[in-house]
């Protein structure tokens, strides 16, 4: 049972990551390779709130979301006007810089030694969320809230403008909407909500170090999104479930660990290839990322 609950927590962490990223990638057509950087920054900001400032659960989460949104804004302002591949490279650059800083600024982040003993969050300052059952519930609640928020955003007039930008920027401009402003808003919202994954991860694992937030992780998040599909809410959820459960399925095949790890990468790669060829919009998505 513990094993299942652990999987549920991990699935929920990735649901928050993919659902948030979907607004950027699937709704606004902004392909980003910097998602793990914001996931990591979110986790470190949570450490700042819980360990350094000794704040309760909700203020910690809100502070971390605010700080991550601020970093998102700092990246978005100079890079959002870049088109296509140039924007991808800007986010890649941010990912690499963030990882390098997190890894090498030892006095601030403890670098490769990581931050151990992250305390469990306290609900209303009293109720400590420490057991697996409580974590499972907390992650379910947070993932559900994130899905709810993004469901409203996607189905609102705001979401309609994003769909317009995804399809035809020039047309949206001629209809009087400031496309750059919308893109900045989307980037900032995505960064803010990715923090929730960082929060869940940091407090669940109780230890973070920069190697959990590498470029590989960014590619992994993007792959989850592309495999599941973009442009709706089903796709990111399917993608998150798929990438978390696939290694577990392989585990049951009884293959040696060395082979299983490589096989997992091969299967991800194979799935991406097959999907791009036969179903470019992903398993459950309704939009093909250009």
């Amino acid at each position: 049972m513990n094993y299942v609950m652990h999987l549920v927590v991990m699935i929920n962490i990735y649901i928050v990551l993919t659902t948030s990223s979907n607004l950027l990638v699937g709704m606004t057509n902004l392909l980003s390779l910097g998602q793990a950087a914001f996931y990591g920054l979110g986790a470190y900001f949570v450490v700042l709130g819980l360990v350094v400032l000794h704040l309760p659960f909700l203020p910690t989460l809100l502070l971390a979301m605010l700080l991550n949104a601020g970093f998102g804004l700092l990246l978005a302002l100079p890079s959002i006007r870049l088109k296509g591949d140039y924007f991808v490279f800007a986010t890649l650059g941010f990912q690499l810089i963030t990882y390098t800083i997190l890894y090498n600024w030892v006095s601030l982040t403890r670098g490769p030694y990581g931050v151990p003993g992250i305390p469990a969050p306290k609900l209303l300052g009293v109720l400590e969320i420490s057991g697996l059952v409580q974590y499972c519930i907390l992650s379910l609640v947070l993932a559900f809230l994130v899905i709810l928020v993004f469901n409203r955003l996607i189905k609102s007039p705001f979401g309609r403008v994003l769909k317009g930008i995804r399809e035809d920027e020039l047309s949206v401009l001629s209809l009087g909407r400031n496309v750059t402003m919308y893109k900045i808003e989307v980037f900032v919202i995505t960064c803010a909500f990715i923090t929730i994954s960082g929060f869940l991860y940091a407090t669940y694992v109780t230890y973070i170090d920069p190697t959990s937030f590498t470029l590989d992780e960014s590619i992994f998040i993007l792959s989850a999104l592309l495999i599941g599909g973009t442009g709706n809410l089903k796709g990111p959820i399917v993608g998150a479930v798929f990438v978390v459960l696939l290694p577990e399925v392989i585990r049951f095949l009884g293959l040696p660990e060395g082979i299983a790890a490589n096989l997992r990468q091969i299967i991800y790669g194979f799935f991406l290839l097959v999907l791009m060829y036969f179903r470019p919009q992903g398993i459950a998505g309704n939009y093909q990322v250009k």
Partner: protein
Amino acid sequence: MMNEDILQIQDLSKAYSRQVVNIDGVETNERYNIIFDLDLDIPQNTITALIGGNGAGKTTLFNIISGITEADSGSIMYCTKNQNSWISLLNQPPHRMKKIGIGRLFQDNHIFLQMSVLENMMIADSNEWGEMPFVSLFNRKKNREIEQFRMKKAKDTFELLFGRDNPFWQKRDDLASTLSYGQQRLLGLARLLMGKYRLVLLDEPTSGVNPMLANTICSVIKKMVDEEGITVFLIEHNMKIVEEIADYCSFMSHGKITAFGYPRDVIGDETVRKTYLGM
């Protein structure tokens, strides 16, 4: 400034640089004037046609007026509300054009094919309420009311243009990609009536459309002027349509307006007939 104008363009110029490689492989930058010292006034509440050969600079002129392309020099003055209120259109960002009342129909359809017919109309509404993330999250009641209002406005617009039992309202939930090319063109025109435009720039509204739909497009354009008080400035290659619907006609050649007047006079001009119509 003439009282009846909505747009006054003076000494407008736009040049592009292009790289030329000569026979010895030497690269040089050559300036190519696409618009050169262009003067043109567009009278209010009229249809003014812009005719001219391919590459004459017509679409570039539209792009400059609508803020998509920057001009090198000259001035474009736009009359906002009354004749005492003029603003320069140069260096205005394209998204501001709608706010000052300038709309655009592009040469390619540029409608949202993966959105429903109704969504295409609703996204064009002049009221942008609910399009900010926080507003869309928290003001659900008001959002619903405004969405209902947008739907009604779309329905009324379709009925005004195409009558009560029009196919657009019947197909409102279908993707715009399911409409024929001509219907997509009409949807693009109908969308312009969702905004509060005073001047619309129509780039070849009837191109690639069968004669019956072209007639419908013409009647929609006339309704825009007669019933909505909009000024129409349109690029058109079909001289029959120009003669039928335009109040004025301007002929553009090599980046300049070389003839302006009543359509019959301009089309009958000897230079226009020789250089453009091939007669």
